[in-house]
């Protein structure tokens, strides 16, 4: 009898200890049907669509509410046109400029550097090369061309249109122009 109870104790403790061994798989849940969402979550799979993604792009030919159309094309001609005639439709106050600096540091500073001289941390570590200074005379950037480049990207620089909305893009653009004029001083 006593031999038995030892064994029972042993099994019981093992049962208690083996809470959740494999950290590579999720733990078990009480009532999964109350945990899982019935409606589609942002990143869930979805059998309705062919590519099985719940995250969808806007239907072609439509724009989401609060967005506006950007009419310049992603070509050299579009770039030249934007460079010539596009200008900032917003006017910013001091608070926006602080915010712009923050956005710039997060999204552009890693390559272009805090001062815009093309010496961000990724450049210093030689991970990404050929980042120009904003004051580069050969490029002679304007606020129109900067906005265009943020929107579409250019050569090896990517587009930032999905990380920054329209107002934020113009905020960053005006901050870039401020850096440019500081650099050329």
């Amino acid at each position, binding site marked *: 009898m006593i031999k038995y109870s030892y064994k029972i104790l042993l099994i019981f*403790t093992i049962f208690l200890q083996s809470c959740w061994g494999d950290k590579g798989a999720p*733990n078990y849940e009480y009532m999964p049907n109350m945990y899982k969402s019935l409606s589609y979550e942002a990143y869930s799979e979805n059998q309705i669509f062919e*590519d099985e993604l719940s995250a969808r792009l806007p239907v072609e030919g439509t724009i989401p509410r609060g967005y506006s159309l950007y009419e310049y094309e992603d070509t050299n001609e579009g770039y030249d046109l934007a460079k010539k005639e596009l200008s900032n439709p917003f006017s910013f106050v001091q608070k926006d400029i602080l915010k712009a600096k923050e956005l710039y540091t997060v999204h552009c500073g*890693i390559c272009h550097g805090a001062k815009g001289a093309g010496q961000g941390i990724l450049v210093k570590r030689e991970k990404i090369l050929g980042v120009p200074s904003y004051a580069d005379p*050969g490029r002679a950037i304007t606020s129109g061309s900067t906005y265009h480049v943020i929107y579409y990207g250019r050569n090896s620089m990517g587009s930032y249109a999905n990380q*920054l909305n329209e107002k934020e893009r113009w905020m960053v653009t005006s901050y870039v122009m401020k850096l440019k004029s500081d650099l050329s001083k």
Partner: protein
Amino acid sequence: MDSKVFSLKITIKLFKKLTKLNSLKSYAFYLIFITSFVSNSYGQEGDPVAGKALFNTNCASCHKLDRKMTGPALRYVEKRLAEDEGLEREWLYKWIRNSSSLIKSGDPYAVKIYEEYNKAAMTAYPQLTNTDIDNILAYTAQDKAVPKPTAVASNLAVGPSNGIGLSDEIILGVFTLLFLLLSIALVVVTKTLKTLAELKGVKPKEKKKTKPIWKAYLENQFLMLCTAILFLLVSAYGFYGWTMQVGVNQGYMPVQPIHYSHKIHSGDNKIDCNYCHSSARVSKHSGIPSLNICMNCHKSIYEYNGETTEEYTKEFYDAEIQKLYKAVGWDDEAQEYTGVTYPVKWVRIHNLPDFAYFNHSQHVNVAGIECQTCHGPVEEMEIMYQHSPLTMGWCINCHRETNVKIKDNEYYDRIHVELSKKYGVEELTAAQMGGLECGKCHY
């Protein structure tokens, strides 16, 4: 051309000086100096070191030495152009200063290469002097450095998972040895004592036959009761603990389809969390970056050159970057998208049950809480795992302890004054603002 004339002048000057010199050492020095000027193969009259700096700042975004990027590979470009197309350095000066005017002027090779690269425009560099361009060409004329065989990582350079260092092992060995010696000594001593006792005629006592201990135990009712109670209490406690961890995924660390390392991106390369998780400041979700964001950098970063360990080698990391290319459909040879994509199925780690509502912008943007407060030392994680329990107790505790950030937030001006009067405090916690109401998180 004028730089050649210039170097000739210097050479003559040096010869004049040389006749005056008699120190052998400086003679040798000048000799080297002169030969470096006089020898005249492609791109030799320039400073490759200065050229490298210029190349990296101006050209490297579109050109690599040995790979096609936006523009052609540039190693031995001058030699190639001279031998294949019969173009002089003058042409290169013109091209680099302003390629588009050269194309417009109808220069046949310029038009040809422009068409070949799908009319991608090369930036104009009017600011580069001839010497600058000579330096760049000198850099492109250098032979490719043969990669040194990388030093094999020694046994000492083990990863962080392996805690026992060499000194620890030595100490352990010494202790084991000591222990062994002691036990041997003990055995020897008891043996001699026994033989001594036998010699003297002392007999060890006979053991009396007693009840075995378990029988005595079984017969003792009180002891049995105590054990039973103890046993029940312990198992009840264990059972409670076990039920409380059901559904808590603290430490959950799934294998992701691409071995994406936060340590390398946010730790070593200091990329801000918001660069990728850019929706954290404006929405409920932080979001996993779509692959085009990865390509903002990985169009240029096609291989890994950072620190490696025995477990994670350069080959391993390079293969992971190739996986990324396959997923977005990027053909690295041709430098263009193929259009065939395979969406990456990242395994979601942090996930609250459907009946609880959590919003990132409320915490990150309004309350100004660092990501690391909730997600732990992400910038040190080679593999992402869940740092916090994400239980209701955890949320509530923090709401009790954390003050709301009222600075720069007009929204709180009135409510803050009124509530702090009500509670008689200076600073309000999130709980006093209503962060404990069930309906804020469950609806």
